[in-house]
């Protein structure tokens, strides 16, 4: 089990390193306009993708119908709009979520 886990950690590290280095190796001279365009628009889209990815296992068909995720998620949005402090938003939302699933919708 531990050998396999160690291999997975090394694979994750190697692929991550490869992704970070690849553009520096491939586009050393000139970056094609299409790639630069993707570089501008993709990051925002990928963050949207990751939001959905994180919420993919939320069950909305039975109680509490995803209410903890919805309430905590909206709290994060509200805090971010209000204070523009990501750490505060993340901490606040997480604490609200922990209270909701431990005490309100156990």
């Amino acid at each position, binding site marked *: 089990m531990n050998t*396999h*886990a160690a291999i*997975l*950690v090394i*694979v*994750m*590290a190697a*692929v*991550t390193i490869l*992704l*970070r*280095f*690849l*553009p*520096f190796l491939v*586009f*050393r001279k000139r*970056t094609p306009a*299409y*790639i*630069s*365009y*993707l*570089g*501008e*628009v*993709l*990051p*925002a*889209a*990928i*963050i*949207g*993708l*990751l*939001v*959905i*990815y994180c*919420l*993919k296992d939320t069950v909305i068909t039975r109680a509490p119908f995803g209410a*903890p995720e919805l309430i*905590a*998620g909206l709290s*994060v*949005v509200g*805090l*971010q709009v209000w204070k*523009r402090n*990501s*750490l505060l*938003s*993340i*901490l606040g*939302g*997480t604490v609200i*979520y*922990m209270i*909701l*699933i*431990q005490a309100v919708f156990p």
Partner: protein
Amino acid sequence: MEKSPEAERKSVIVRKAFLKSLPVMAGYVVLGIGFGILLRNAGYGVLWSAAMAVLIYAGSMQYVGISLLAGGAGILTTILTTVMVNARHLFYSISMIGCYKNAGRYKPYMIFALTDETYSLLCNGETPDPEYADLYRFLVSLFNHLYWIAGCILGSLLGAVLPFSTAGIEFSMTALFIASFTEQWLRTKDHIPAMTGLLATLLCLVVLGPEYFLIPAMLLITLILTLLRGRLGRKAV
């Protein structure tokens, strides 16, 4: 004012880099603690947490990696998942090619350590002293990495002794992305890329289910944004 000696200028750079990295310190320590706790709950202790923080150094990937480790995922699945979760790093690197061009011996480490947060601190290209720009960027990268390692180790140690239930702490990752999403929404005028990412992924999730939606969603997003290129490309982001 007289020109200060080299050592003094370097110590100013160290201080400026430290100040620049401070906002990330709090975030990395908190998220690292969350990661360390979750990894411990999955049965992997402090050495695993430290190794992943040092070698992978990608917050969202490490969180996703916990479920890969716990589920005994295959190597191909691990490769594909890492590519999907970390593909955005390709684009951080692309936009830093010019900025890091002359970084010399610091360059390999700076590329290795180019996380979301480090990118967000350095992407505007500002530097307090043009002559030491590379040292400055190297130090910001290094400080951030150290905060992350410290947080991951701390979380793993704390996870064993915390007096309250940590159930629900996994929401910190969701909160991280929702906060980033909101912040970039507030900072940009054109919301089509963000909406494309959100809606295309949601569509794939509803149609294909939670097992298989990720890669199709990634392809659909790339396709839609490619088709919109004429429209979006003209406006400077």
